[in-house]
């Protein structure tokens, strides 16, 4: 059983309440932090090696150190709880079942950054979780951990919830800030970065829920202790939300030295492929990261065991690797259709494109249409190359990464499963009745070691 830093208390009866959370050692980091200098807290976070848990994996301490501090201008901390990357439901789990951990992290982080008014931007559909968080905020305030002069330190901090209204794009930090200002969620051109010009033109830090929660153990145990967990630049623990065709779907806190194989097949985690079927493919880090066939998922192209961390999952680049992303782990069994799965993802990105940049607005819709054609037996061979061409022209040509997120799943599906696309086109009637299945991949999978 690996060490748990975030979820170790999640099953304690009544942990949602301030009383139980406090009794279990909660809010200790606030007391400790308020006796430190804000700059020293930033240094601890740098030492910890913590990387942003929303998907991009940017070092949190460095992000914090970029925050501009002009005299007389307010600074803001905004927590990104707009979790909406398909396959990702880890922040929801944390907020729903141990809400005070996020509130505690927000208080410490607000103090470190000098934010006297901080916000949690939560996706609109998480309506009941908004209520849970509001109760936690109210309890924290009643007990002197929020509001004026927190624990007699002289530090004031108000924490407000801001509920979104259904827009994936608002998970992109500048779109989120636009939305917080009461506008459409259209990403901004960077620079200026939010650290210099964020919400209402003020310096702003935007961090994911899990990132903020990880600040609590970093302050309690020190940045160095945190940096010793994990491996290389993948320090600390990571929440993985596992879904698809596995026996035990759910959220797991892992040590990033764990192998992908153990994560999928061990009873401590996913418990193997459901219904005794075989593993076909997996999208290991949220829907936008490249899908990998089983053989490349379990071992890298060099034949090394692939691990559940930033470096190992991206080993081989996009040619033979993928990404850690947000930790949304989607498993496909032997019966699943890669074309249909890619179609649903293309539809998702088309639906969620904000429409600002033409490569994304037009390209994502065009890809959806072509994939629809292929899935429903109307495709032509040239469509595959056309899809490839479109995704290539979207990637890197948009203001925000949604363009890349729309392009990558299509590119990876063609890269690794081209024959499945061809089979659809060559068998227009049969593909309506059954999925391509595993025939072609079976050998590759049999050859890889599955315990």
């Amino acid at each position, binding site marked *: 059983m690996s060490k748990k830093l975030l979820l170790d208390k999640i099953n304690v009866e009544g942990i949602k309440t301030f009383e139980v959370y406090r009794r279990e050692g909660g809010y200790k980091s606030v007391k400790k932090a308020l006796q430190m200098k804000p700059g020293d807290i930033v240094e601890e976070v740098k030492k910890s090696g913590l990387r942003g848990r929303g998907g991009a994996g940017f070092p949190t301490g460095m992000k914090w150190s970029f925050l501009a501090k002009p005299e007389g201008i*307010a600074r803001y901390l905004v927590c990104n709880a707009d*979790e*909406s*990357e*398909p*396959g*990702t*439901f880890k922040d*929801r789990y944390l907020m729903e079942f141990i809400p005070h951990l996020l509130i505690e992290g927000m208080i410490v982080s607000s103090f470190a950054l000098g934010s006297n*008014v901080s*916000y949690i931007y939560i*996706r*609109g*559909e*998480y*309506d*009941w979780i908004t209520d849970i968080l509001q109760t936690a905020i109210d309890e924290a305030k009643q007990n002197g951990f929020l509001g004026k002069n927190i624990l007699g330190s002289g530090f004031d901090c108000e924490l*407000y919830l*801001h*509920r*979104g*209204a*259904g*827009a*994936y794009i608002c998970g992109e930090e500048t779109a989120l800030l636009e*939305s*917080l*200002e*009461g*506008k*459409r*969620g259209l990403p901004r051109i960077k620079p200026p970065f939010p650290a210099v010009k964020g919400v*209402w033109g003020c310096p702003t830090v935007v961090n994911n829920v899990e990132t903020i929660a990880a600040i609590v153990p970093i302050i309690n145990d020190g940045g160095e202790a945190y940096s010793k967990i994990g491996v290389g630049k993948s320090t600390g623990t990571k929440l993985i*939300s*596992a*879904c*698809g*065709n596995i026996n035990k*779907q*759910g*959220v797991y806190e892992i040590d990033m030295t764990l192998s992908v194989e153990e994560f999928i097949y061990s009873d401590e985690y996913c418990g193997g492929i459901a219904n005794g079927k075989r593993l076909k493919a997996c*999208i290991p880090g949220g*829907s936008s990261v490249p899908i990998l066939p089983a053989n490349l998922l379990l071992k890298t192209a060099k034949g090394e065991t692939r691990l559940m961390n930033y470096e190992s999952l991206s080993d081989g680049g996009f040619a033979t690797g993928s990404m850690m992303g947000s930790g*949304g782990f*989607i498993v*496909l069994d032997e019966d*699943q259709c890669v074309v*249909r*799965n890619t179609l*649903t*993802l293309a*539809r*998702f990105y088309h*639906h*969620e494109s*904000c429409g600002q940049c033409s490569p994304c607005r037009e390209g994502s819709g065009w890809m959806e249409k072509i994939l629809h054609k292929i899935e429903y037996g109307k495709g032509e061979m040239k469509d595959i190359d056309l899809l490839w061409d479109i995704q290539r022209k979207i990637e890197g040509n948009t203001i925000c990464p949604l363009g890349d997120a729309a392009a990558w799943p299509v590119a990876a599906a063609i890269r690794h499963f081209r024959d499945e696309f061809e089979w659809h086109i060559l068998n227009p009637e049969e593909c309506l009745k059954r999925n391509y299945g595993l025939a072609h991949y079976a050998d590759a999978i049999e050859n890889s070691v599955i315990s």
Partner: protein
Amino acid sequence: MTFSPDKLNKVNELIGHYPEGKQKSAILPVLHLAQEEFGGWLDVSTMDYVASLLKIQPIEVYEVATFYSMYNMKPVGKYVFEVCQTGPCMINGSDDIIKYIQQKLNIKIGETTADGLFTLKVVECLGACGYAPMMQLGKTYREHLTKEKVDAIIEECVKNAAANN
């Protein structure tokens, strides 16, 4: 149309969450409140009223309301089934659930039943991939859907509607 004094207090409290002069920031929460209070959707007069409360131009409300998927721009039924159809839900059988609801309620996607009770919408990922297939119904999620569960949910809604009449 006006909010009750209670709700007006809520609106002012929401505006107070943001710096002086930045009351436009309250637009999303106030629109949520307005949709809840004024019939489950946002007609032009509702949006104009929200604009007047926030002291902004009506167009600023229209452009926001039409951008976000949770605001209904036309009337909906008393109970709105919002069924997720993205990858992880599709893998777990959301296509069959959507088909089943269509048959059961005898409506197509986007339609409302003749008695005004049910609307069926398909939506993109709601962050419940590990509990698929699923749908949003009002404030909460209904997860691990099966045909039997769908039957029970419909029955529950019909009962609740009858009890409220």
